[in-house]
């Protein structure tokens, strides 16, 4: 039996002969989650660890319960390994080179590693530039997560591990958003259309609408579609800027003067005249202080290198050619304008009448065929 990383095993009555084993999952039904830092971190950790262990093991065994979600989640692995390999391609062999070649190659390798890092950072950090304004203006959070409880086939006769949790987003599918999770539970005293009322109010459709859900669903669908369109394209432009910044000259000085070996700094107590004893005692306080100072110095250097690199990226740096002067500017303004126009279009469209009718859950003019 493959046990989930969290070690929790759920039991389905009738399948298990061991009644003492009654592990419980965190959720017993599909549950809407809050989109906050803690949840996002928890989901990211859960997905990453499962991708590296449980899902990979299931996939390699060809488990019958392996599904598309798991395949997609495993899909993060090539990104991580690929990034590290790309860094490695430009750095691993350098240590075998002669000193001069090593120093030259290490600078290129360092820039390449920074490029990979900044690519990922810029891509991920640019996404909130799109989703946050959309959420602020329309109330629609395209990243709203929920936990999905999945029932699986038993792997063998007495298998009790027949449910698992998947982490999805309510609007990850524009064709089948999980509208149901957005309704309030009246049995708990919640207002059924509370979420939709909130969106309707945000969009300026008014308050206390009779069927706010029917009013706003088509609009939400359009917002989500447009937002996904922008998110799937524009962050790659920001990622390009990340790479561009990483390939600037100011990093060369930083990279050639920065080593991870500064922790080896030592300060020896000077209280003994015997050289043997002198070397045996390390002044922890002074060593720690030195490491602290060195860290601060490096952070300052990092800040300067980053600041100057951004400047050089935009201006082209010293002795820039015409192309170089305009290369960085063009990329920056392309990304900025694409972001502003993209978000602007989403926001302006949210106050326009929807192009789709609320009854267009199935488009009448379209022929539906299975396959």
């Amino acid at each position, binding site marked *: 039996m493959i046990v989930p990383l969290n070690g929790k095993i759920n039991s389905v009555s009738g399948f298990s002969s061991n009644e003492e084993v009654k592990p419980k999952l965190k959720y017993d039904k599909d549950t809407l989650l809050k989109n906050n830092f803690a949840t996002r971190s928890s989901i990211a950790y859960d997905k990453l660890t499962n991708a590296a262990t449980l*899902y*990979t093991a299931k*996939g*390699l*065994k*060809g*488990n*019958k319960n*392996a*599904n*598309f979600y798991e*395949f997609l989640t*495993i*899909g993060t*692995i*090539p990104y991580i*390994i*690929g990034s590290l*390999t790309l860094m490695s*391609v430009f750095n*691993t*062999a350098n240590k*075998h*080179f*002669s000193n001069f*070649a090593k120093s030259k*190659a290490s600078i290129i390798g360092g820039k390449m590693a920074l490029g990979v890092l900044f690519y990922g950072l810029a891509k991920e950090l640019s996404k909130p530039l799109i989703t946050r304004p959309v959420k602020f203006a329309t109330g629609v959070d395209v990243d709203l997560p929920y936990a999905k409880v999945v029932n699986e086939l038993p792997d063998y006769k007495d298998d009790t591990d027949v449910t698992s949790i998947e982490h999805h987003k309510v609007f990850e*599918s*524009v*064709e089948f958003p999980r509208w149901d999770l957005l309704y309030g539970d009246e049995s708990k005293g919640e207002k059924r259309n509370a979420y939709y009322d909130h969106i309707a109010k945000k969009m300026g459709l008014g308050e206390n609408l009779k069927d706010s859900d029917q009013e706003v669903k088509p609009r939400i*669908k*359009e*917002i989500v*579609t*447009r937002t*996904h*369109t922008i998110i799937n*394209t*524009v*962050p*790659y432009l920001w*990622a*390009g800027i990340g*790479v*561009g910044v990483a*390939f600037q000259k100011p990093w060369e000085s930083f990279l050639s003067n920065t080593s991870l070996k500064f922790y080896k700094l030592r300060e020896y107590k000077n209280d003994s005249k015997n050289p043997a004893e002198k070397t045996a005692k390390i002044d922890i306080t002074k060593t720690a202080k030195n490491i602290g100072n060195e860290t601060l110095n490096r952070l300052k250097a990092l800040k300067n290198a980053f600041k100057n690199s951004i400047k050089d990226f935009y201006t082209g740096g010293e002795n820039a050619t015409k*192309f170089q002067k*305009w*290369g960085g500017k063009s*990329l920056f303004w*392309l990304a900025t304008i694409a972001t502003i126009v993209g978000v602007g*279009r989403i926001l302006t*469209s949210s106050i326009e009448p929807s*192009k*789709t009718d609320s009854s267009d859950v199935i488009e*009448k003019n379209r*022929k539906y*065929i*299975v*396959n």
Partner: protein
Amino acid sequence: MSTNLINNYTNQNKANKALYSNAQISNSTNSKPVPGLKPLEGKGHLIKGSLLDAPSYMIKDLAYDVQALKNGINGKSNDHKLGKLNDLGMKLGGLGIAAFLYTKKQTPMTKSMEFVGFASFFASMALWPKIALQAPASLLHGFNVQQKYVDSFGRKKLFFQDPQYTPWDLYSDKDINKIGNRLGVPKDIPNRRDFIQEKMKKIAVQNNTMWMLTAGFATPIMSALICNAAEKVILPAQNKLKNDRINKTLNNIEQSAKKYDFQGAKDQFENLFEANKEKPFDEEMVSSIAKAITPEMNPFVRDEVVKDLKNILMNENGTIDESFINALHKEYKELTTEYFSDNIEHLEKAMEIIPDTKQITDFLDSKKLLGVQLDKTNKEKVSDTIERLFSVHTRNTCCSVFGLKEMPETPTNRNEKFAKYIDKNLDTMYQSAIKNTIENNPGKKFTVEVKAEIENIAKVLQDHLRKSFVLEDYAYTKVAKAPETVLANQWNKIADGLPELFGISKKEMANVRYDRTLVQELIRAKIEKIASNETEYKKVVTKIAQGLKELDSNIKPEDMTKFYNETDNLYNTSADNLAEKKLYLTAKKLKGIDTPQWEQDKINTLKKLVSEQGAGVKEETLDELKYFEDRVSLREAGSMKRLQKVFVEQRLSGVKNAYYRLLSTLDLYRRVATKDFGPIINGRITGGLDEGMKDEVRKDIIEASKRAGIENHCSDEAIKGYYPRNPNPDLKATGKIDVVEGKVVGQEAVDIIEGTTKGVDIPYDYNFYKNTMQFRFKNEMNKSTTDALKEVGLLEEVKNYRTKFFNTLGSANYFSKLSHKIGKSVEANFEEKFLLCGVAVDELFTNIINKSFNTNKWLKIFGGFGIGLLGVTVGSQFLFGRMKNPQKVKKA
């Protein structure tokens, strides 16, 4: 398909294929099956195409992606299309990065590689699963684990993308059974199709997982390896294109020059004119004009243009006119204000006395000075006249202001003293003002006429610039000390092949790469071995010579002659034209000093003589030619024309000499290996290694020569050699030297590392130096060498090199070894001597070995890893799809 519930309704009336309308469907009851209702025929199908279909699919996919983007922007899209946008975004982003990094790179190849890198990365992403998973799985299991299908809505998907939703009905029973047979599924089992499907699904899930696990390693490595291989194809192709392009420019300089558009310069000049119209020229304005009309001109030449323009535009004193009067009044007022600024009462009185511009005009008119052109001859006289006018005015006005009849010689009261004080000081003020105004009164103003004059000068300068840019582009592309020039590419082509040509193994490279002395030992051993084997020796010499000959085909000597002639023509013509426009300093900077015609005629006559007489030409004739050519060089020294030509000459000779030296060294080792010690006269060896010499000294000469060939830098040659040896050699003189495998028997290699020297250098031993040089460069080359070089057509060049080396470096003065001159002194500057020496052989090999080692090491690490990864991935197929077969159906 596994859950096609609608099919449940299809058995009612198979004959009736007509569909119910939407209205009929809407009106029908929910529970009752409608007779004849059946879903539309599915249009989904598996994609079974060959590589030939790939372009068609690429175009369709691109159209789909564009449609997806359009739909997404309009807010009407579906999950599949939005998913495709991610791929599109990634590719567009990648293209953006490649385009940006393109701007950061300097050379065509590195620029191209940005796009090759981009393309190879995405190609690797697509190719890896096909090569490492799809192909082996297909061979082993009989089906495509990366099978794609198009659903009824035209959406292209991976068939095994979602194991819980697999459209199995796209596979016919026949196909499935065929796959089952290949998978070894027994034929007589219940639900055979289901079992085969399960097995296929299992294999596909395992392959998909393996894909995800390996793609991260494979894609960057595969991409890097593709780029590595692509460089070898792209560089020669670009080199050829570049060379062809630049050759065309030289053949049509006029046409090529047209591409340099100086519209920006013209606009800038117009702006300057508009801003300074009718204003007198000053230094700043002249500098700005010079800068505007000479875009991208060499700053040293531009300095001369500025000086010339100043001479033309600012060397005349102007006319006495309104602007002169204004300037004089302004200057007088300013000086007075400054002088009396600490006493307001004095200042007020002084200001009352200073004449206004009208009064000054009247003074000057009264003496008919208005409109007078100032020049050197009348400047002083005019100045005196104006001063007298001012003196009278100041005294009279001063008396009037202070209420005096006349200015007293000796003031008696405060008022008189005050008047005297003001009068006296104002005299000083106007004298200075008049002098300054006359000196600074510009002759020319920026008028329309002067503008036209400057435009004429600009035209000559810009015509020159355009054509000089063409020549500079030609010189740069062919021979510049920069990556990817024609010369650099050829250098690399020869150099990169040397380790293999000399049989240096990867292990040997790894062992010696850090230490030049280790490289010396290695390369010496290799050359000795090569030199001992005629076939091998000829092969090596021929290969290097062919490389050099190829350089001549890329940079043809006749093209170079054309380049030199074009340079002469351009710079001479431009200089003459500029001199006509009075830009004498610029003209001199461009071409230097003219050579008198008789000298030029003499040079031409001598050249013709040398050409006619060939090898039999007298030494005196050559000396005379060199004498006159040196005179021309001296006149041209420092000129741009000379610089342009020398740049090309030096670059070419620097590269060629490095390889001539290598060939020369190989020949030396060959002569030693074959005991070809020198010309035999009367049965005795002569030419440096005379038979009568002591054996030990003869061996030292050979050793010194062998070492010099491999190790000597220009400085070693300049100090006439440094060779520690036994100062008291053995007297034995047998006349015999034994050589085995290229090594002289009994000659130990002398270690010259400081502190471990076994002998001493003997600086006064001229004979030793002379004999070494004689043996190295004067003795005839070995027959194997001459045969090989002759066949390639490089014999004369190498011979000339050796002669030049012998004469130039052998006869150069050296202060501490005054007698060490083989022939009469030869004039050669340091640069010439440096270029003659070329790069030391051991240094050449140290660089190449390091470069080769680095490339090999990288390839070993990542190529090895890539192969290992491929092996593991392919091998994993044998572990995939293992399932226990169901029990066979028992026959009744």
